[in-house]
C-alpha cells in the first residue's frame, strides 16, 4: 500500500531510495541538496534495511565509492549539485566506460563556477552531451515534481541495471527544496547475496572455484578491442533511444503553438499555457521526462502541426539545440529563459510566447 | 649423516634475465646463459650441482619463474 507524506523533493528522493532497496549512498554536502544525506543519516537506514550511508571526503571520493559499490552489483547512489557534479565527472566517465549501474542525482544550481545556490537548468549540456571524457551517454531523467523525485529513485535503479549504465536524475534547486505531497511505494527488500550473484554475474563478489575471475575496468590498451567496446556502448544507447524515451504531452492535440520545457520550467510553462488558452491561443506543452533519450520523434511530429515552438529553460538555451535538431527548419524555434538562479514567472513566458512565437 | 640435495627448474621463456636471483643464491648455482630466449633475454640457468633447495632464488624472482625441489639423502 502506498503511503502519503508531505516532503521536500530531496527528502522524498532519499526516502524512495531506501524503499527501492538501495544498498548504499555516498555523498558530500552541497546546497541545495544536502537534505538528501541529512535525511538518510537521520533515518538510520542501516537499521531499517541494512543500507549503508557514508559521508565522503569529497564528491570525487563519493562517486568513486559508487564505482566500487556498483562493481559489486550493489544498488548504490550519490547526489550533489552542479559544482559537485562537475567534480564527479571523472568517476562518471569511468562508471559509464566500465558499464556499471548507479543512480546520480543533480539538484542543479546556477553557474558557472561557484555561481549561486538558487535553482537553474544550466547543466543540460553536461548531463546529456557527455560531461566527462569519452563517447558515452547517461540515461537522464528530469523530474518536475516531488512525486517524480521519489518515483525516479526506483525507476533509476531499474533502468540502471537493465542497461548497466549510470542514470542521472537532473533536478533543480526548486524541485529539491519544495514541499509537496508524495505517494511512497512500499519497502522493497534489498537483494540477497544469492540474488546479486544471479542478477549481476559480472560483479566482483569474490572469485569462486567454478567461475573465471570478474574484472571491472574501463581500460583496454588494444585499440581494436576498445573500438568494439565503444561500438557496443553506442548500440546500447540506440537501444535506450528505442525503448526508454519518456515525455508528457499537455494540450498538444489541437495545439497551434508549442512550448517545450522540462522540470521546474515545465511547471510554470503549464500555467502559461493555461493563461494563453484563456486568451484564445491554442498552445500546448511538451515536457521531456527523459532528456537522454530525447523525445525527438514526438517533437518532430508536432513540428508539422504547429506554427512555432518556444523552449523555456532556466539557462541561456541548451535543450533548444536538441529541439531544433528534431524540428529541422520547418518551424521557428525560439528560446526564453532566465539565468543566474532566477525562475521565470508564467506571465513572462506568456509575454515571450507572444513576442517570439505568436506575433513573431 | 643426512644430506639435503636440491634442484631448480627455470621457466626460461618467462625469465627476463634480471639477475636478481644470482646474488641470492648462497651456493652460486645460477648464472645467465649465453643463449637467449624467445624474447631475447639471456635467461638464468643452473650451472652446477650445488643446489640445496633453499628457495632463495625463487622467493626473490620478480617473475616467479623458478620452481624448487629438495630431497633428503640418507
Amino acid at each position, binding site marked *: 500500500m502506498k503511503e502519503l507524506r508531505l516532503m521536500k523533493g530531496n527528502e522524498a528522493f532519499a526516502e524512495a531510495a531506501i524503499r527501492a532497496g538501495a544498498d548504499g549512498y555516498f555523498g558530500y554536502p552541497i546546497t541545495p541538496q544536502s537534505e538528501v544525506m541529512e535525511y538518510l543519516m537521520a533515518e538510520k537506514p542501516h537499521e531499517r534495511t541494512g543500507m549503508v550511508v557514508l559521508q565522503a571526503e569529497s564528491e570525487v571520493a563519493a562517486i568513486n565509492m559508487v564505482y*566500487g559499490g556498483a562493481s559489486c552489483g550493489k544498488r548504490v547512489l550519490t547526489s550533489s549539485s552542479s559544482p559537485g557534479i562537475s567534480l564527479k565527472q571523472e568517476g562518471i566517465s569511468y562508471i559509464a566506460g566500465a558499464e556499471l549501474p548507479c543512480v546520480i542525482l543533480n539538484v542543479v544550481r546556477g553557474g558557472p563556477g561557484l555561481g549561486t545556490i538558487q535553482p537553474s537548468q544550466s547543466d543540460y549540456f553536461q548531463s546529456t552531451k557527455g560531461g566527462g571524457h569519452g563517447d558515452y551517454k547517461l540515461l537522464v531523467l528530469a523530474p518536475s515534481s516531488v512525486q517524480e523525485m521519489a518515483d525516479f529513485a526506483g525507476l533509476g535503479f531499474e533502468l540502471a541495471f537493465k542497461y548497466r549504465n549510470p542514470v542521472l536524475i537532473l533536478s533543480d534547486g526548486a524541485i529539491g527544496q519544495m514541499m509537496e505531497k508524495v505517494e511512497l511505494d512500499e519497502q522493497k527488500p534489498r537483494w540477497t547475496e544469492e540474488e546479486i550473484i544471479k542478477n549481476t554475474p559480472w560483479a*566482483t563478489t569474490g572469485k569462486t572455484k567454478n567461475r573465471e575471475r570478474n*574484472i571491472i575496468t574501463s581500460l583496454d590498451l588494444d585499440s581494436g578491442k576498445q573500438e568494439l567496446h565503444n561500438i557496443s556502448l553506442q548500440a546500447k544507447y540506440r537501444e535506450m533511444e528505442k525503448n526508454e524515451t519518456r515525455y508528457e504531452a499537455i494540450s498538444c492535440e489541437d495545439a497551434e503553438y508549442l512550448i517545450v520545457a522540462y522540470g521546474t520550467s515545465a511547471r510554470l510553462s503549464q500555467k502559461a499555457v493555461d493563461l494563453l488558452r484563456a486568451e484564445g491561443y491554442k498552445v500546448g506543452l511538451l515536457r521531456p521526462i527523459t532528456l537522454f533519450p530525447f523525445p525527438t520523434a514526438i517533437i518532430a511530429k508536432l513540428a508539422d502541426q504547429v506554427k512555432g515552438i518556444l523552449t523555456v529553460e532556466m539557462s541561456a538555451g541548451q535543450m533548444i539545440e536538441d529541439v531544433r535538431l528534431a524540428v529541422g527548419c520547418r518551424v521557428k524555434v525560439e528560446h526564453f529563459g532566465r539565468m543566474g538562479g532566477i525562475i521565470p514567472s508564467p506571465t513572462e513566458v506568456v509575454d515571450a510566447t507572444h513576442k517570439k512565437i505568436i506575433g513573431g | 649423516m643426512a644430506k639435503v640435495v636440491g634442484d631448480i627448474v627455470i621457466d626460461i621463456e618467462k625469465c627476463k634475465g634480471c*639477475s636478481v636471483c644470482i646474488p641470492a643464491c648462497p651456493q652460486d648455482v645460477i648464472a645467465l646463459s649465453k643463449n637467449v630466449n624467445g624474447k631475447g633475454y639471456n635467461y638464468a640457468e643452473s650451472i652446477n650441482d650445488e643446489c640445496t633447495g633453499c628457495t632463495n632464488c625463487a*622467493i626473490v624472482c620478480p617473475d616467479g619463474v623458478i*620452481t624448487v625441489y629438495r630431497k633428503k639423502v640418507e
Partner: protein
Amino acid sequence: MANITKEEIRKPENLVYKKTDLLTDKALSYCPGCGHGTAHRIVMEVLEEMDIQDKTIGIAPVGCSVLAYDFMNIDMQQAAHGRAPALATAVKRLHPDKFVFTYQGDGDLAAIGTAETIHACNRGENIVIIFINNGIYGMTGGQMAPTTLPGMKSSTSPYGRDVQTMGNPLRITELIAQLPGTIFVTRQAVHTPAHVRKAKKAVRKAFENQKLNKGLSFVEIVSNCNSGWKMTPLKSNEWMVDNMFPYYPLGDIKVNE
C-alpha cells in the same frame, strides 16, 4: 650426491616452491627486475595460505600496476588514478565479510590520491593498503613523483629534484601512522630473500588484522624502478639500499595490538 639424478630430485613429493596458482600464467608486464612482480606474488601467496581467494576483492590503481588484474587471479576492480581507497571503502562497507585491499604506487597513493588515502586511513576502514614506493612515475616514463629523493633525476626533474622549487619528498607512511584509524603501518622491501620473507609476514599480518576487524593496515614496499632510474636491476637494488632506505627507513612504524 653424484648418484642422485635430477629426475629423482624433481619429483612432486620433493617440491618446495612453485609460483602460486593465484597468479595467472600470463607473463608479467613489468620490466626485468622490477619489485612489482615480487610484491604481487607475496600478496597472492598470503591469500592462498589464508584460503581467502573466493572472499577477496582487489583494487588496482593507475600506473605500472594498472594491469594487476591480468596477473592476480581474483576478482578485481580497476580504479581511476588515486581513487582506489574510495572504491575499497565502499566495497568493504557493502561487503564486511569480504577481504578488500588496494595495490597502489607512489604517484597514485601519495600525489593524486592523497585525500582518498588519508581519509580512508583516518576513518579506519577495515582494509589493507599495499603501497609500492619506487620514487618515480614508472608507467608514464619516469617523471618526478611525490617520493622522488632530493637531487634525484627524473624526466621532469632532469637536473635533479630541487626541493626549493619542486618541494620535498613525502614520507606519507609516517604521516599515515599518525592517524588513529590505522592499526598497523610498516615499511618493507623485496630485493633480497630475507626482505621478501619479512615483507610477506607483514602482508600476512595486515590481512589477519582485517580478518579480526581491527582497522586499516598499511604496508609500504620500497622498491626499485631500474628503467626509470636508468640502471641495471642489480645496480638499482644497490642504489635503493644506499639512497632510498636512508630516507625511507625499513621497519614497523606503528603496531597496535
